[in-house]
Protein backbone atom coordinates (compact mmCIF):
# COMPACT_ATOMS: atom_id res chain seq x y z
CA UNK A 1 0.00 0.00 0.00
CA UNK A 2 2.66 2.50 1.09
CA UNK A 3 4.74 1.38 -1.86
CA UNK A 4 1.84 2.06 -4.22
CA UNK A 5 1.28 5.54 -2.83
CA UNK A 6 4.99 6.39 -2.99
CA UNK A 7 5.13 5.18 -6.59
CA UNK A 8 2.09 7.27 -7.53
CA UNK A 9 3.64 10.26 -5.80
CA UNK A 10 6.89 9.89 -7.76
CA UNK A 11 4.97 9.55 -11.02
CA UNK A 12 3.02 12.69 -10.16
CA UNK A 13 6.24 14.59 -9.58
CA UNK A 14 7.63 13.44 -12.94
CA UNK A 15 4.40 14.52 -14.61
CA UNK A 16 4.62 17.90 -12.87
CA UNK A 17 8.18 18.37 -14.10
CA UNK A 18 7.18 17.47 -17.68
CA UNK A 19 4.23 19.87 -17.53
CA UNK A 20 6.62 22.58 -16.40
CA UNK A 21 8.89 21.73 -19.34
CA UNK A 22 6.00 21.89 -21.82
CA UNK A 23 4.83 25.19 -20.37
CA UNK A 24 8.37 26.59 -20.57
CA UNK A 25 8.74 25.55 -24.19
CA UNK A 26 5.37 27.06 -25.16
CA UNK A 27 6.83 30.55 -25.15
CA UNK A 28 9.87 29.40 -27.09
CA UNK A 29 7.64 28.06 -29.86
CA UNK A 30 6.99 31.67 -30.83
CA UNK A 31 8.60 32.17 -34.21
CA UNK A 32 11.30 34.81 -33.93
CA UNK A 33 12.20 36.80 -30.85
CA UNK A 34 9.53 36.42 -28.13
CA UNK A 35 10.26 39.91 -26.85
CA UNK A 36 9.55 41.35 -30.28
CA UNK A 37 6.34 39.34 -30.53
CA UNK A 38 5.21 40.59 -27.11
CA UNK A 39 5.99 44.23 -27.80
CA UNK A 40 4.88 44.29 -31.43
CA UNK A 41 6.89 45.00 -34.56
CA UNK A 42 6.96 48.77 -33.99
CA UNK A 43 8.89 48.38 -30.72
CA UNK A 44 12.22 50.18 -30.48
CA UNK A 45 15.35 48.02 -30.26
CA UNK A 46 16.01 49.49 -26.80
CA UNK A 47 12.63 48.29 -25.51
CA UNK A 48 13.17 44.86 -27.02
CA UNK A 49 16.58 44.72 -25.39
CA UNK A 50 15.13 45.71 -22.02
CA UNK A 51 12.43 43.05 -22.18
CA UNK A 52 15.03 40.51 -23.28
CA UNK A 53 16.94 41.34 -20.11
CA UNK A 54 13.85 41.32 -17.95
CA UNK A 55 12.71 37.91 -19.17
CA UNK A 56 16.30 36.64 -19.45
CA UNK A 57 15.70 35.91 -23.12
CA UNK A 58 19.29 36.83 -23.96
CA UNK A 59 20.64 33.77 -22.12
CA UNK A 60 21.03 30.37 -23.80
CA UNK A 61 17.81 28.34 -23.75
CA UNK A 62 19.08 25.62 -21.39
CA UNK A 63 20.25 28.33 -18.99
CA UNK A 64 16.83 29.99 -19.09
CA UNK A 65 15.23 26.58 -18.51
CA UNK A 66 17.40 25.92 -15.46
CA UNK A 67 16.68 29.36 -14.02
CA UNK A 68 12.98 28.94 -14.67
CA UNK A 69 12.78 25.55 -12.96
CA UNK A 70 14.80 26.89 -10.03
CA UNK A 71 12.46 29.85 -9.62
CA UNK A 72 9.49 27.53 -9.92
CA UNK A 73 10.74 25.31 -7.11
CA UNK A 74 10.93 28.38 -4.89
CA UNK A 75 7.37 29.29 -5.87
CA UNK A 76 8.29 32.25 -8.09
CA UNK A 77 6.30 32.42 -11.28
CA UNK A 78 7.55 35.78 -12.49
CA UNK A 79 5.77 39.09 -12.87
CA UNK A 80 2.86 39.95 -15.10
CA UNK A 81 3.90 42.10 -18.05
CA UNK A 82 0.55 43.90 -18.04
CA UNK A 83 -0.42 44.27 -14.37
CA UNK A 84 3.16 44.46 -13.10
CA UNK A 85 2.16 42.19 -10.25
CA UNK A 86 3.61 38.83 -9.21
CA UNK A 87 1.87 36.08 -11.20
CA UNK A 88 1.35 34.10 -8.01
CA UNK A 89 -0.80 36.92 -6.57
CA UNK A 90 -2.99 36.97 -9.67
CA UNK A 91 -3.40 33.22 -9.43
CA UNK A 92 -4.34 33.36 -5.76
CA UNK A 93 -6.95 35.99 -6.59
CA UNK A 94 -8.48 33.91 -9.38
CA UNK A 95 -8.10 30.35 -8.15
CA UNK A 96 -10.82 30.49 -5.44
CA UNK A 97 -13.46 31.51 -8.04
CA UNK A 98 -12.51 28.57 -10.24
CA UNK A 99 -12.47 26.12 -7.35
CA UNK A 100 -15.89 27.35 -6.20
CA UNK A 101 -17.29 27.06 -9.70
CA UNK A 102 -15.80 23.58 -10.19
CA UNK A 103 -17.18 22.41 -6.85
CA UNK A 104 -20.64 23.71 -7.71
CA UNK A 105 -20.40 21.93 -11.07
CA UNK A 106 -19.24 18.69 -9.47
CA UNK A 107 -21.99 18.75 -6.82
CA UNK A 108 -24.68 19.54 -9.38
CA UNK A 109 -23.44 16.80 -11.69
CA UNK A 110 -23.66 14.31 -8.81
CA UNK A 111 -27.17 15.53 -7.92
CA UNK A 112 -28.29 15.10 -11.53
CA UNK A 113 -26.12 12.23 -12.66
CA UNK A 114 -26.17 9.77 -9.77
CA UNK A 115 -29.92 9.18 -9.37
CA UNK A 116 -30.60 9.18 -13.11
CA UNK A 117 -27.61 6.92 -13.81
CA UNK A 118 -28.52 4.43 -11.07
CA UNK A 119 -32.18 4.32 -12.13
CA UNK A 120 -31.19 3.99 -15.79
CA UNK A 121 -29.02 1.00 -14.96
CA UNK A 122 -31.71 -0.60 -12.85
CA UNK A 123 -34.55 -0.12 -15.33
CA UNK A 124 -32.43 -0.34 -18.44
CA UNK A 125 -34.46 0.13 -21.59
CA UNK A 126 -37.03 2.10 -19.61
CA UNK A 127 -37.90 5.75 -19.27
CA UNK A 128 -34.94 6.66 -17.05
CA UNK A 129 -32.57 4.96 -19.46
CA UNK A 130 -33.94 7.02 -22.35
CA UNK A 131 -33.66 10.19 -20.25
CA UNK A 132 -30.04 9.42 -19.38
CA UNK A 133 -29.26 8.69 -23.02
CA UNK A 134 -30.91 11.97 -24.00
CA UNK A 135 -28.92 14.03 -21.48
CA UNK A 136 -25.70 12.20 -22.36
CA UNK A 137 -26.26 12.83 -26.06
CA UNK A 138 -26.95 16.52 -25.46
CA UNK A 139 -23.83 16.83 -23.33
CA UNK A 140 -21.75 15.30 -26.12
CA UNK A 141 -23.14 17.13 -29.13
CA UNK A 142 -23.59 20.63 -27.69
CA UNK A 143 -20.54 22.75 -26.93
CA UNK A 144 -20.53 24.27 -23.44
CA UNK A 145 -20.87 27.77 -24.85
CA UNK A 146 -24.16 26.91 -26.56
CA UNK A 147 -25.65 25.50 -23.35
CA UNK A 148 -24.38 28.60 -21.52
CA UNK A 149 -26.02 30.97 -24.00
CA UNK A 150 -29.31 29.08 -23.84
CA UNK A 151 -29.24 29.45 -20.04
CA UNK A 152 -28.36 33.13 -20.28
CA UNK A 153 -31.22 33.66 -22.69
CA UNK A 154 -33.67 31.91 -20.37
CA UNK A 155 -32.46 33.14 -16.99
CA UNK A 156 -31.57 36.68 -18.00
CA UNK A 157 -33.75 37.73 -20.91
CA UNK A 158 -36.81 35.56 -20.47
CA UNK A 159 -37.17 35.28 -16.70
CA UNK A 160 -34.98 38.19 -15.53
CA UNK A 161 -33.59 36.19 -12.63
CA UNK A 162 -29.99 37.28 -12.94
CA UNK A 163 -27.66 39.86 -14.43
CA UNK A 164 -25.72 38.82 -17.49
CA UNK A 165 -22.61 40.70 -16.34
CA UNK A 166 -21.95 38.11 -13.63
CA UNK A 167 -19.88 38.71 -10.54
CA UNK A 168 -17.00 40.47 -12.26
CA UNK A 169 -18.75 43.76 -12.89
CA UNK A 170 -21.68 43.79 -10.50
CA UNK A 171 -19.77 42.32 -7.58
CA UNK A 172 -22.87 40.36 -6.62
CA UNK A 173 -21.97 37.86 -3.95
CA UNK A 174 -23.10 34.32 -4.60
CA UNK A 175 -24.73 34.50 -1.16
CA UNK A 176 -27.09 37.22 -2.36
CA UNK A 177 -27.85 35.64 -5.72
CA UNK A 178 -26.70 32.02 -5.85
CA UNK A 179 -27.67 31.92 -9.53
CA UNK A 180 -24.39 33.63 -10.47
CA UNK A 181 -22.69 30.35 -9.59
CA UNK A 182 -25.56 27.93 -10.07
CA UNK A 183 -26.21 28.73 -13.72
CA UNK A 184 -22.58 28.49 -14.91
CA UNK A 185 -22.19 25.48 -12.60
CA UNK A 186 -25.22 23.83 -14.17
CA UNK A 187 -23.77 24.45 -17.63
CA UNK A 188 -20.60 22.62 -16.67
CA UNK A 189 -22.53 19.98 -14.72
CA UNK A 190 -24.52 18.92 -17.79
CA UNK A 191 -21.26 18.14 -19.59
CA UNK A 192 -20.14 16.02 -16.62
CA UNK A 193 -23.44 14.41 -15.69
CA UNK A 194 -24.02 12.91 -19.15
CA UNK A 195 -20.95 10.66 -19.20
CA UNK A 196 -21.33 10.00 -15.44
CA UNK A 197 -24.83 8.60 -15.98
CA UNK A 198 -23.62 6.27 -18.68
CA UNK A 199 -20.78 4.99 -16.49
CA UNK A 200 -23.11 4.40 -13.53
CA UNK A 201 -25.67 2.72 -15.75
CA UNK A 202 -23.14 0.17 -16.99
CA UNK A 203 -21.78 -0.37 -13.48
CA UNK A 204 -25.25 -1.01 -12.02
CA UNK A 205 -26.05 -3.43 -14.83
CA UNK A 206 -22.80 -5.26 -14.24
CA UNK A 207 -23.20 -5.37 -10.47
CA UNK A 208 -26.82 -6.52 -10.72
CA UNK A 209 -25.83 -9.45 -12.90
CA UNK A 210 -22.89 -10.56 -10.77
CA UNK A 211 -22.64 -13.78 -8.78
CA UNK A 212 -22.67 -12.23 -5.33
CA UNK A 213 -25.94 -10.43 -6.05
CA UNK A 214 -27.42 -13.75 -7.14
CA UNK A 215 -26.26 -15.23 -3.89
CA UNK A 216 -27.86 -12.47 -1.81
CA UNK A 217 -31.02 -12.76 -3.83
CA UNK A 218 -31.16 -16.49 -3.12
CA UNK A 219 -30.87 -15.71 0.56
CA UNK A 220 -34.28 -14.07 0.25
CA UNK A 221 -33.27 -10.48 0.88
CA UNK A 222 -35.70 -7.91 -0.53
CA UNK A 223 -34.94 -6.34 -3.90
CA UNK A 224 -34.95 -2.84 -2.44
CA UNK A 225 -32.36 -3.78 0.17
CA UNK A 226 -30.19 -5.53 -2.43
CA UNK A 227 -30.23 -2.42 -4.55
CA UNK A 228 -29.29 -0.01 -1.80
CA UNK A 229 -26.89 -2.18 0.12
CA UNK A 230 -24.98 -3.90 -2.71
CA UNK A 231 -25.76 -2.80 -6.25
CA UNK A 232 -25.70 0.98 -5.83
CA UNK A 233 -22.81 0.94 -3.40
CA UNK A 234 -20.64 -1.07 -5.76
CA UNK A 235 -21.56 1.07 -8.74
CA UNK A 236 -20.85 4.35 -6.96
CA UNK A 237 -17.11 3.88 -6.48
CA UNK A 238 -16.25 3.63 -10.20
CA UNK A 239 -18.71 6.43 -10.89
CA UNK A 240 -17.10 8.83 -8.47
CA UNK A 241 -13.61 7.83 -9.60
CA UNK A 242 -14.70 8.63 -13.12
CA UNK A 243 -15.77 12.07 -11.92
CA UNK A 244 -12.29 12.59 -10.45
CA UNK A 245 -10.62 11.75 -13.74
CA UNK A 246 -12.79 14.28 -15.55
CA UNK A 247 -11.21 17.20 -13.69
CA UNK A 248 -8.85 18.14 -16.54
CA UNK A 249 -11.79 18.26 -18.92
CA UNK A 250 -13.80 20.30 -16.42
CA UNK A 251 -10.95 22.77 -16.05
CA UNK A 252 -10.91 23.12 -19.83
CA UNK A 253 -14.65 23.79 -19.85
CA UNK A 254 -14.23 26.35 -17.07
CA UNK A 255 -12.18 28.55 -19.39
CA UNK A 256 -14.98 29.29 -21.82
CA UNK A 257 -17.75 29.30 -19.20
CA UNK A 258 -15.92 31.87 -17.07
CA UNK A 259 -15.49 34.03 -20.14
CA UNK A 260 -19.20 33.89 -20.96
CA UNK A 261 -20.47 34.45 -17.40
CA UNK A 262 -17.77 37.01 -16.57
CA UNK A 263 -16.44 35.11 -13.58
CA UNK A 264 -12.95 36.37 -12.68
CA UNK A 265 -11.37 32.92 -12.28
CA UNK A 266 -8.39 31.10 -13.73
CA UNK A 267 -10.05 30.68 -17.12
CA UNK A 268 -10.64 34.39 -17.55
CA UNK A 269 -7.14 35.10 -16.25
CA UNK A 270 -5.51 32.80 -18.81
CA UNK A 271 -7.67 33.82 -21.77
CA UNK A 272 -7.07 37.51 -21.07
CA UNK A 273 -3.36 36.89 -20.61
CA UNK A 274 -3.17 34.95 -23.89
CA UNK A 275 -4.74 37.81 -25.84
CA UNK A 276 -2.54 40.34 -23.99
CA UNK A 277 0.58 38.27 -24.75
CA UNK A 278 1.21 38.32 -21.01
CA UNK A 279 3.30 35.16 -21.20
CA UNK A 280 4.36 34.86 -17.54
CA UNK A 281 0.68 34.81 -16.55
CA UNK A 282 -0.15 32.30 -19.31
CA UNK A 283 2.64 30.01 -18.11
CA UNK A 284 1.79 30.39 -14.44
CA UNK A 285 -1.93 29.95 -15.04
CA UNK A 286 -1.55 26.77 -17.09
CA UNK A 287 0.89 25.39 -14.51
CA UNK A 288 -1.48 26.13 -11.63
CA UNK A 289 -4.39 24.41 -13.37
CA UNK A 290 -2.31 21.39 -14.40
CA UNK A 291 -0.85 21.05 -10.88
CA UNK A 292 -4.37 21.09 -9.47
CA UNK A 293 -5.31 18.25 -11.81
CA UNK A 294 -2.18 16.29 -10.85
CA UNK A 295 -2.92 16.69 -7.14
CA UNK A 296 -6.56 15.65 -7.52
CA UNK A 297 -5.60 12.67 -9.72
CA UNK A 298 -3.12 11.56 -7.06
CA UNK A 299 -5.72 11.90 -4.31
CA UNK A 300 -8.34 10.01 -6.34
CA UNK A 301 -5.89 7.17 -7.01
CA UNK A 302 -4.91 6.99 -3.35
CA UNK A 303 -8.47 7.05 -2.08
CA UNK A 304 -9.43 4.48 -4.67
CA UNK A 305 -6.66 2.17 -3.47
CA UNK A 306 -7.85 2.66 0.11
CA UNK A 307 -11.49 1.88 -0.67
CA UNK A 308 -11.01 -0.96 -3.11
CA UNK A 309 -8.67 -3.62 -1.76
CA UNK A 310 -8.65 -5.44 -5.11
CA UNK A 311 -6.53 -2.75 -6.76
CA UNK A 312 -3.08 -4.00 -7.68
CA UNK A 313 -0.18 -2.24 -6.06
CA UNK A 314 2.09 -2.50 -9.05
Amino acid at each position, binding site marked *: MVQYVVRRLLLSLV*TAWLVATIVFSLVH*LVPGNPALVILGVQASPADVHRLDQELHLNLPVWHQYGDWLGQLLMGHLGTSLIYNEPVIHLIFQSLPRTIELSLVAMILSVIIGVPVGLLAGFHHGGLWDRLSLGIA*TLSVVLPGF*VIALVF*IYLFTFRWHWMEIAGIAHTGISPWINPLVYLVPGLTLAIGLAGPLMRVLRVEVMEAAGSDYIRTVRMMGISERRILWKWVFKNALIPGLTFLGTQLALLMGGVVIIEEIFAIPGM*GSLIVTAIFNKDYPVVQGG*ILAMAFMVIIVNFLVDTVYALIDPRISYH
Partner: protein
Amino acid sequence: MLTVTIPDPRQEVTATPDIRHRMLRRFSRRPINMMGLLLIVGIVCAGLGAHWIAPYPANATHFASALRPPSWHHLFGTDSLGRDVLSRIIYGTNASLLASMGAVGLALGAGTVIGLAAGYWPHSLLDEMLMRLMDAILVIPPLVLALALAFILGSGMVNAIFAISVIFSPQFARVVRSKVLTVRTLPFVEAAQSAGAGSMRILWRHILPSILQPILVLGTLDVGSAIIVEASLAYLGLGLQPPAPSWGFMVSSNVNYLSQAPWLIFGPSLAIALTVWAVTIVGQGLQELSS
Protein backbone atom coordinates in the same frame (compact mmCIF):
# COMPACT_ATOMS: atom_id res chain seq x y z
CA MET B 1 -42.23 -19.83 -51.48
CA LEU B 2 -39.54 -22.23 -52.49
CA THR B 3 -36.15 -20.80 -52.99
CA VAL B 4 -33.36 -22.71 -54.57
CA THR B 5 -29.90 -21.56 -53.71
CA ILE B 6 -27.48 -22.04 -56.49
CA PRO B 7 -23.91 -22.08 -55.26
CA ASP B 8 -22.03 -19.13 -56.63
CA PRO B 9 -18.89 -20.40 -58.33
CA ARG B 10 -17.00 -17.30 -57.27
CA GLN B 11 -17.63 -18.12 -53.64
CA GLU B 12 -15.98 -21.46 -54.12
CA VAL B 13 -12.77 -19.72 -55.08
CA THR B 14 -12.73 -17.34 -52.12
CA ALA B 15 -13.35 -19.91 -49.48
CA THR B 16 -13.11 -17.53 -46.51
CA PRO B 17 -16.39 -15.80 -45.70
CA ASP B 18 -16.29 -12.15 -46.53
CA ILE B 19 -16.24 -10.71 -43.04
CA ARG B 20 -16.06 -7.17 -44.26
CA HIS B 21 -19.23 -7.58 -46.27
CA ARG B 22 -21.06 -9.14 -43.37
CA MET B 23 -20.02 -6.38 -41.01
CA LEU B 24 -21.16 -3.77 -43.46
CA ARG B 25 -24.54 -5.45 -43.60
CA ARG B 26 -24.76 -5.55 -39.83
CA PHE B 27 -23.86 -1.87 -39.67
CA SER B 28 -26.47 -0.90 -42.24
CA ARG B 29 -29.21 -2.96 -40.61
CA ARG B 30 -29.56 -0.41 -37.81
CA PRO B 31 -31.49 2.56 -39.19
CA ILE B 32 -29.82 5.00 -36.80
CA ASN B 33 -26.40 4.14 -38.21
CA MET B 34 -27.60 4.78 -41.73
CA MET B 35 -29.20 8.03 -40.60
CA GLY B 36 -25.87 9.17 -39.18
CA LEU B 37 -24.02 8.10 -42.30
CA LEU B 38 -26.48 9.83 -44.62
CA LEU B 39 -26.27 12.97 -42.52
CA ILE B 40 -22.47 12.97 -42.76
CA VAL B 41 -22.62 12.48 -46.53
CA GLY B 42 -25.16 15.29 -46.74
CA ILE B 43 -23.05 17.65 -44.61
CA VAL B 44 -19.87 16.91 -46.56
CA CYS B 45 -21.71 17.44 -49.86
CA ALA B 46 -23.20 20.69 -48.57
CA GLY B 47 -19.74 21.90 -47.62
CA LEU B 48 -18.11 20.90 -50.90
CA GLY B 49 -20.98 22.26 -52.98
CA ALA B 50 -21.48 25.37 -50.81
CA HIS B 51 -20.99 27.55 -53.84
CA TRP B 52 -24.00 26.00 -55.61
CA ILE B 53 -26.21 25.12 -52.64
CA ALA B 54 -26.01 28.23 -50.47
CA PRO B 55 -28.83 30.61 -51.36
CA TYR B 56 -26.64 33.70 -50.84
CA PRO B 57 -22.89 34.43 -50.92
CA ALA B 58 -21.23 33.99 -47.51
CA ASN B 59 -20.24 37.62 -47.08
CA ALA B 60 -22.99 39.44 -48.96
CA THR B 61 -24.09 42.20 -46.60
CA HIS B 62 -27.52 43.72 -46.90
CA PHE B 63 -28.00 46.27 -44.15
CA ALA B 64 -31.63 46.95 -45.00
CA SER B 65 -32.53 43.41 -43.95
CA ALA B 66 -30.31 43.06 -40.84
CA LEU B 67 -31.38 40.94 -37.85
CA ARG B 68 -34.40 39.45 -39.61
CA PRO B 69 -36.01 36.49 -37.87
CA PRO B 70 -36.22 33.18 -39.74
CA SER B 71 -38.44 33.30 -42.82
CA TRP B 72 -38.72 31.51 -46.15
CA HIS B 73 -36.18 33.91 -47.65
CA HIS B 74 -33.73 33.40 -44.79
CA LEU B 75 -34.36 30.06 -43.10
CA PHE B 76 -32.13 30.88 -40.12
CA GLY B 77 -32.58 34.65 -40.26
CA THR B 78 -29.96 37.30 -40.99
CA ASP B 79 -27.18 38.67 -38.79
CA SER B 80 -26.38 42.26 -37.82
CA LEU B 81 -24.80 42.92 -41.21
CA GLY B 82 -27.78 41.45 -43.04
CA ARG B 83 -25.87 38.31 -44.07
CA ASP B 84 -27.90 35.14 -44.55
CA VAL B 85 -27.13 32.84 -41.59
CA LEU B 86 -27.97 29.61 -43.45
CA SER B 87 -25.56 30.45 -46.28
CA ARG B 88 -22.79 31.23 -43.82
CA ILE B 89 -23.43 27.94 -42.01
CA ILE B 90 -23.14 26.05 -45.30
CA TYR B 91 -19.92 27.86 -46.21
CA GLY B 92 -18.60 27.30 -42.67
CA THR B 93 -18.95 23.52 -43.00
CA ASN B 94 -15.65 23.17 -44.81
CA ALA B 95 -13.62 24.95 -42.15
CA SER B 96 -15.16 22.94 -39.35
CA LEU B 97 -14.79 19.57 -41.06
CA LEU B 98 -11.32 20.26 -42.41
CA ALA B 99 -9.99 21.46 -39.04
CA SER B 100 -11.49 18.62 -37.02
CA MET B 101 -10.66 15.82 -39.44
CA GLY B 102 -7.20 17.22 -40.08
CA ALA B 103 -6.50 17.48 -36.36
CA VAL B 104 -7.73 13.97 -35.62
CA GLY B 105 -5.78 12.60 -38.60
CA LEU B 106 -2.61 14.25 -37.36
CA ALA B 107 -3.24 13.09 -33.78
CA LEU B 108 -3.95 9.58 -35.02
CA GLY B 109 -0.69 9.51 -36.97
CA ALA B 110 1.46 10.94 -34.18
CA GLY B 111 -0.27 8.94 -31.44
CA THR B 112 0.08 5.71 -33.42
CA VAL B 113 3.79 6.19 -33.99
CA ILE B 114 4.33 6.99 -30.30
CA GLY B 115 2.13 4.10 -29.15
CA LEU B 116 3.83 1.62 -31.50
CA ALA B 117 7.28 2.58 -30.28
CA ALA B 118 6.26 2.58 -26.62
CA GLY B 119 4.37 -0.69 -26.83
CA TYR B 120 6.93 -2.61 -28.84
CA TRP B 121 9.68 -1.84 -26.34
CA PRO B 122 7.68 -1.76 -23.10
CA HIS B 123 9.29 -0.48 -19.91
CA SER B 124 12.25 0.78 -21.90
CA LEU B 125 13.51 4.32 -21.35
CA LEU B 126 11.82 5.32 -24.62
CA ASP B 127 8.49 3.91 -23.45
CA GLU B 128 8.72 5.65 -20.08
CA MET B 129 9.67 8.98 -21.62
CA LEU B 130 6.97 8.94 -24.27
CA MET B 131 4.18 7.80 -21.99
CA ARG B 132 5.07 10.24 -19.20
CA LEU B 133 5.02 13.00 -21.81
CA MET B 134 1.53 11.85 -22.82
CA ASP B 135 0.50 11.90 -19.13
CA ALA B 136 1.77 15.46 -18.87
CA ILE B 137 -0.28 16.57 -21.87
CA LEU B 138 -3.36 14.89 -20.40
CA VAL B 139 -3.24 16.83 -17.12
CA ILE B 140 -3.17 20.20 -18.87
CA PRO B 141 -6.79 21.24 -19.42
CA PRO B 142 -7.24 20.47 -23.13
CA LEU B 143 -8.94 23.66 -24.20
CA VAL B 144 -6.35 25.76 -22.37
CA LEU B 145 -3.48 23.99 -24.11
CA ALA B 146 -5.11 24.26 -27.54
CA LEU B 147 -5.90 27.91 -26.89
CA ALA B 148 -2.34 28.75 -25.86
CA LEU B 149 -0.84 26.83 -28.80
CA ALA B 150 -3.27 28.30 -31.32
CA PHE B 151 -2.51 31.81 -30.13
CA ILE B 152 1.24 31.41 -29.95
CA LEU B 153 1.43 29.83 -33.40
CA GLY B 154 -0.88 32.48 -34.85
CA SER B 155 -4.27 32.22 -36.51
CA GLY B 156 -4.86 30.09 -39.57
CA MET B 157 -6.12 26.66 -40.44
CA VAL B 158 -2.83 24.75 -40.26
CA ASN B 159 -1.93 26.14 -36.85
CA ALA B 160 -5.40 25.40 -35.49
CA ILE B 161 -5.14 21.84 -36.78
CA PHE B 162 -1.77 21.40 -35.06
CA ALA B 163 -3.00 22.92 -31.80
CA ILE B 164 -6.06 20.65 -31.68
CA SER B 165 -4.08 17.57 -32.68
CA VAL B 166 -1.75 17.94 -29.69
CA ILE B 167 -4.59 17.45 -27.22
CA PHE B 168 -5.95 14.38 -29.03
CA SER B 169 -2.62 12.54 -29.50
CA PRO B 170 -2.16 11.05 -26.00
CA GLN B 171 -5.41 9.08 -26.26
CA PHE B 172 -4.26 7.38 -29.45
CA ALA B 173 -0.81 6.73 -28.02
CA ARG B 174 -2.30 5.04 -24.96
CA VAL B 175 -4.74 2.87 -26.91
CA VAL B 176 -2.12 1.86 -29.49
CA ARG B 177 0.40 1.04 -26.78
CA SER B 178 -2.00 -1.23 -24.91
CA LYS B 179 -3.02 -2.98 -28.15
CA VAL B 180 0.60 -3.49 -29.17
CA LEU B 181 1.36 -4.98 -25.75
CA THR B 182 -1.17 -7.73 -26.35
CA VAL B 183 -0.42 -8.27 -30.03
CA ARG B 184 3.38 -8.46 -29.79
CA THR B 185 3.31 -11.79 -27.93
CA LEU B 186 0.94 -13.45 -30.42
CA PRO B 187 2.32 -16.32 -32.55
CA PHE B 188 2.28 -14.45 -35.86
CA VAL B 189 4.54 -11.74 -34.49
CA GLU B 190 6.87 -14.29 -32.93
CA ALA B 191 6.92 -16.14 -36.25
CA ALA B 192 7.93 -12.97 -38.06
CA GLN B 193 10.59 -12.30 -35.43
CA SER B 194 12.07 -15.78 -35.72
CA ALA B 195 11.99 -15.46 -39.50
CA GLY B 196 14.41 -12.59 -39.00
CA ALA B 197 12.16 -9.63 -39.82
CA GLY B 198 13.40 -6.29 -38.51
CA SER B 199 11.53 -4.28 -35.86
CA MET B 200 10.37 -1.69 -38.36
CA ARG B 201 9.02 -4.31 -40.71
CA ILE B 202 7.21 -6.15 -37.90
CA LEU B 203 5.67 -2.95 -36.58
CA TRP B 204 4.62 -1.71 -39.99
CA ARG B 205 3.60 -4.90 -41.78
CA HIS B 206 2.39 -7.15 -38.96
CA ILE B 207 1.42 -5.21 -35.85
CA LEU B 208 -0.05 -2.02 -37.33
CA PRO B 209 -2.61 -3.74 -39.62
CA SER B 210 -3.91 -5.85 -36.74
CA ILE B 211 -4.56 -2.89 -34.46
CA LEU B 212 -5.81 -0.44 -37.07
CA GLN B 213 -9.50 -1.11 -36.57
CA PRO B 214 -9.90 0.11 -32.97
CA ILE B 215 -7.77 3.17 -33.76
CA LEU B 216 -9.95 4.13 -36.69
CA VAL B 217 -13.07 3.72 -34.53
CA LEU B 218 -11.54 5.94 -31.85
CA GLY B 219 -10.60 8.41 -34.57
CA THR B 220 -14.17 8.59 -35.84
CA LEU B 221 -15.48 9.26 -32.33
CA ASP B 222 -12.80 11.89 -31.79
CA VAL B 223 -13.79 13.86 -34.89
CA GLY B 224 -16.96 14.76 -32.97
CA SER B 225 -15.00 16.10 -29.99
CA ALA B 226 -12.59 17.88 -32.32
CA ILE B 227 -15.49 19.72 -33.94
CA ILE B 228 -16.49 20.96 -30.47
CA VAL B 229 -12.91 22.01 -29.66
CA GLU B 230 -12.57 23.79 -33.00
CA ALA B 231 -15.87 25.57 -32.42
CA SER B 232 -14.74 26.57 -28.92
CA LEU B 233 -11.45 27.97 -30.24
CA ALA B 234 -13.36 29.81 -32.95
CA TYR B 235 -15.79 31.07 -30.31
CA LEU B 236 -12.89 32.63 -28.43
CA GLY B 237 -11.72 34.16 -31.71
CA LEU B 238 -8.82 31.80 -32.43
CA GLY B 239 -9.85 30.18 -35.65
CA LEU B 240 -10.06 31.38 -39.18
CA GLN B 241 -9.72 35.08 -39.84
CA PRO B 242 -13.10 36.81 -40.10
CA PRO B 243 -15.07 37.38 -42.29
CA ALA B 244 -14.49 33.74 -43.27
CA PRO B 245 -17.50 31.96 -41.77
CA SER B 246 -16.91 29.45 -38.98
CA TRP B 247 -19.64 28.00 -36.79
CA GLY B 248 -18.08 28.82 -33.43
CA PHE B 249 -17.29 32.40 -34.37
CA MET B 250 -20.77 32.87 -35.83
CA VAL B 251 -22.11 32.17 -32.34
CA SER B 252 -19.69 34.39 -30.41
CA SER B 253 -19.89 37.33 -32.81
CA ASN B 254 -23.67 37.42 -32.33
CA VAL B 255 -23.74 37.07 -28.55
CA ASN B 256 -24.57 40.75 -28.16
CA TYR B 257 -27.81 40.25 -30.06
CA LEU B 258 -28.88 37.36 -27.86
CA SER B 259 -31.87 39.21 -26.41
CA GLN B 260 -33.12 40.67 -29.71
CA ALA B 261 -32.18 37.90 -32.13
CA PRO B 262 -31.70 34.56 -30.36
CA TRP B 263 -32.08 32.74 -33.70
CA LEU B 264 -28.60 33.90 -34.64
CA ILE B 265 -27.06 31.34 -32.33
CA PHE B 266 -29.64 28.69 -33.14
CA GLY B 267 -28.49 27.97 -36.71
CA PRO B 268 -24.77 27.49 -36.12
CA SER B 269 -25.43 25.60 -32.86
CA LEU B 270 -27.75 23.24 -34.71
CA ALA B 271 -25.08 22.72 -37.38
CA ILE B 272 -22.49 21.85 -34.73
CA ALA B 273 -24.85 19.55 -32.82
CA LEU B 274 -26.08 17.70 -35.92
CA THR B 275 -22.59 17.14 -37.27
CA VAL B 276 -21.22 15.94 -33.95
CA TRP B 277 -24.27 13.72 -33.47
CA ALA B 278 -23.88 12.13 -36.91
CA VAL B 279 -20.17 11.48 -36.42
CA THR B 280 -20.73 10.07 -32.92
CA ILE B 281 -23.54 7.75 -34.04
CA VAL B 282 -21.43 6.36 -36.89
CA GLY B 283 -18.45 6.02 -34.55
CA GLN B 284 -20.54 4.12 -32.00
CA GLY B 285 -21.94 1.90 -34.75
CA LEU B 286 -18.41 1.05 -35.87
CA GLN B 287 -17.36 0.48 -32.27
CA GLU B 288 -20.18 -2.04 -31.80
CA LEU B 289 -19.04 -3.88 -34.90
CA SER B 290 -15.42 -4.10 -33.87
CA SER B 291 -16.14 -5.34 -30.36
